């Protein structure tokens, strides 16, 4: 598809979860939409069921330089090519809670969002119908108010039931994990068959992502999609108060300008900040949208707390969806519950994930100390008896955790992004609280061997946060950049706080709210 020569209504940067959502809604509203994607087209047949082949879907763009004691793990946590990370994400889609939006006002730490849960609730309700979420809203006793899910819960099996008993014996509840995975034919998409290959991409369309849900709608409505087209900067009109388009580098290395009435930047967390920083001009000498000085700041990344165990009963841990079977958000609404241990924030458990023998989150790397003949025994037992769950632990926003531009440049002369990330002592303490609880639950479930993996980064948020005004943030409640209102941001880079839940449902809810403004 040749790049548009005429001015379009909207140019969208990035074709992942957020970009595809904007493309579908805006083109369906009759706007002329062009989407620019740095990576290649990804075809269904590239979603090869293999933890080795899965690595070809991860970030393959310009390196992101990582510093600090808790690096954000960019390559694992980002996607590349049409569909972005959405095509190999695990589709665990819980809502953020009311207190996640008011962390500063309620607790005097972190930041507030410029919106409340009540503002976002109708969009969560709308998105869950559009994308199809399965779950049991009533069983999720911690869930904030909202419509019930349009589909019944994901399959549960031995592994989930065994861990569930562990929670129950400690007086805690579990509920089916809310997942953007079809449990019956939904909007033409087939039901999941529980083979656990989600990390390698779900080629059947059972899992809701840009390729299965939003791209078909966007293309049918006339949006044009341009892979292998890297956006290097956002252009502004002479006064610097309106975006006029973007400059791109094509696969052949040509520099081209694409003009538009509005620009949507949805290139994922770190690249959104990088592109804005690289779009400096005489009107915006420190980067576009950086009047507050917060551009690049408040990068957050959930601390994953992976817990493992071996249970005397057969658990068949390879069965199910990669994201898991059950959810626990027992203490979610009490961010100060563990303040005695120096902890602050919320966390949830994703319980009974399907595990493969290999892969970063697989059986083998969970016990790197085992080798030789003992490894074979461990692998043989684990593939029948392992139990797993992962805590998603809130990361307090800190200004110093930020994206800056490096002196090093990519092949097109754009400075590389450097990301500094160090978790706050309160977040690290909360991770410890979660790990201790997780190990207790597994012992209570009857596991004869329990252990945890070291903390690891999961999801990347912040860097171009939304807020009340140009003095404290980059964008407003709709993602529009304060100083350049026809430049709209999509994705988790807008999140002022991380909460302790996976971000993609909220990314879609924000995009849906922004689209109402743009149409």
């Amino acid at each position, binding site marked *: 598809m040749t790049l548009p020569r005429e001015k379009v209504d909207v140019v969208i940067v990035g074709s992942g979860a957020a970009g595809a959502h904007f493309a579908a809604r805006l083109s369906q509203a009759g706007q002329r939409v062009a989407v620019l994607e740095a990576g290649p087209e990804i075809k269904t*047949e590239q*979603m*090869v*069921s*293999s*933890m*080795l*082949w899965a*690595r*070809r879907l*991860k970030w*393959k763009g310009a*390196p992101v*330089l*990582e510093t600090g004691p808790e*690096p954000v*793990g960019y*390559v*694992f946590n980002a996607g590349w090519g049409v569909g972005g990370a959405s095509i190999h994400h695990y589709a665990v889609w819980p809502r953020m809670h009311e207190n996640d939006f008011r962390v500063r006002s309620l607790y005097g730490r972190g930041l507030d969002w410029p919106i409340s849960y009540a503002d976002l609730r109708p969009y969560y309700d709308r998105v869950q119908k559009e994308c199809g979420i399965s779950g049991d809203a009533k069983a999720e006793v911690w869930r904030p108010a909202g419509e019930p899910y349009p589909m019944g819960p994901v399959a549960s099996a031995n592994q989930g039931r065994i861990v569930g008993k562990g929670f129950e014996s400690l007086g805690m509840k579990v509920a089916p994990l809310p997942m953007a995975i079809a449990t019956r034919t939904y909007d033409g998409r087939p039901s999941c*068959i529980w*083979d*656990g*290959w989600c990390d390698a991409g*779900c*080629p*059947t369309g059972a899992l809701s992502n840009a390729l299965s849900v939003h791209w078909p709608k966007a293309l049918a409505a006339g949006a044009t999609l341009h892979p292998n087209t890297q956006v290097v900067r956002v252009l502004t009109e002479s006064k610097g108060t309106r975006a006029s388009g973007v400059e791109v580098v094509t696969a052949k290395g040509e520099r081209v300008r694409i003009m538009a009435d509005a620009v949507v930047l949805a290139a994922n967390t770190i690249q959104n900040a990088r592109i804005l920083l690289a779009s400096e001009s005489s009107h915006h000498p420190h980067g576009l949208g950086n009047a507050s000085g917060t551009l690049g700041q408040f990068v957050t990344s959930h601390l994953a707390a992976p817990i493992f165990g071996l249970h005397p009963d057969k658990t068949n841990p*390879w069965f199910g969806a990669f994201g898991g079977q059950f959810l626990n958000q027992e203490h979610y609404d009490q961010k100060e519950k563990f303040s005695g241990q120096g902890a602050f924030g919320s966390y949830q458990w994703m319980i009974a994930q399907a595990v*493969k*023998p*290999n*892969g*970063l989150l*697989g*059986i*083998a*790397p969970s016990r*790197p*100390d085992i*080798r*030789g*003949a003992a*490894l*074979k025994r461990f*692998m*043989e037992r684990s*593939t*029948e008896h392992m139990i797993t769950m992962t805590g998603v632990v809130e990361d307090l926003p800190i200004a110093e955790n930020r994206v800056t531009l490096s002196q090093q440049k990519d092949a097109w002369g754009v400075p590389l992004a450097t990301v500094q990330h160090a978790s706050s002592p309160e977040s690290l303490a909360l991770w410890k609280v979660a790990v201790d609880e997780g190990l207790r639950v597994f012992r209570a479930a009857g596991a004869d061997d329990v252990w945890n993996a070291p903390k690891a980064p999961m999801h990347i948020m912040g860097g171009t946060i939304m807020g009340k005004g140009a003095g404290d943030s980059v964008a407003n409640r709709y993602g529009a950049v304060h100083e350049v209102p026809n430049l709209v941001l999509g994705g988790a880079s807008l999140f002022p706080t991380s909460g302790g839940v996976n971000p993609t449902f909220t990314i879609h809810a924000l995009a849906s709210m922004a689209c109402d403004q743009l149409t």
Partner: protein
Amino acid sequence: MKATRREILYAGGIGLLSFTLGGAKVELSPRDAREAGVKPRVLLSNEEETLAALGDRIVPGSRESGVSVYVDHQLAVSFEECMLMIQYLGVAPPFTSFYRSGLSSVNSVARARHGQPFAELTDANAEALIEDMASEKLEDWEGPPQGLFYFVIRNDACDVQYGTQEGFVRLNVPYAAHILPPSEWG
């Protein structure tokens, strides 16, 4: 038989890799390929041997499953095609120097301790060296961080031993693919 050109094309038979030897396409196990004189593309022969020996000590069976052939192949392809787990671990591509300096350090330590390359160490001496590397206790180590190097090699070896269709069969785990890999590793 002399290799004129080598390609890993299609592991049609479980555990077999295709090579072009003397102009003809043949399917060989990694061990047979080595015996047939197939040369690594990126690693030097002694590096490949050290990698195979180290991988096999950590994950028994991984030499036969082709750990050194796998790593050598992945180092030869572009980053876009690369399947090595190291890409998740904060190491920027290209990865050859990471492997090369780690393997060379393993051999230097083996020589300093026992006067032999790693591949010729006794079981006890090899295990002691690996234990020290995994717990970052090797003095005179000049490669990448020792614990990381151990973790990377262990994962590569696990990938070929347990992460392929044959590996799943070994563990009695249903592979249940949506799309079967066109080859084990690219």
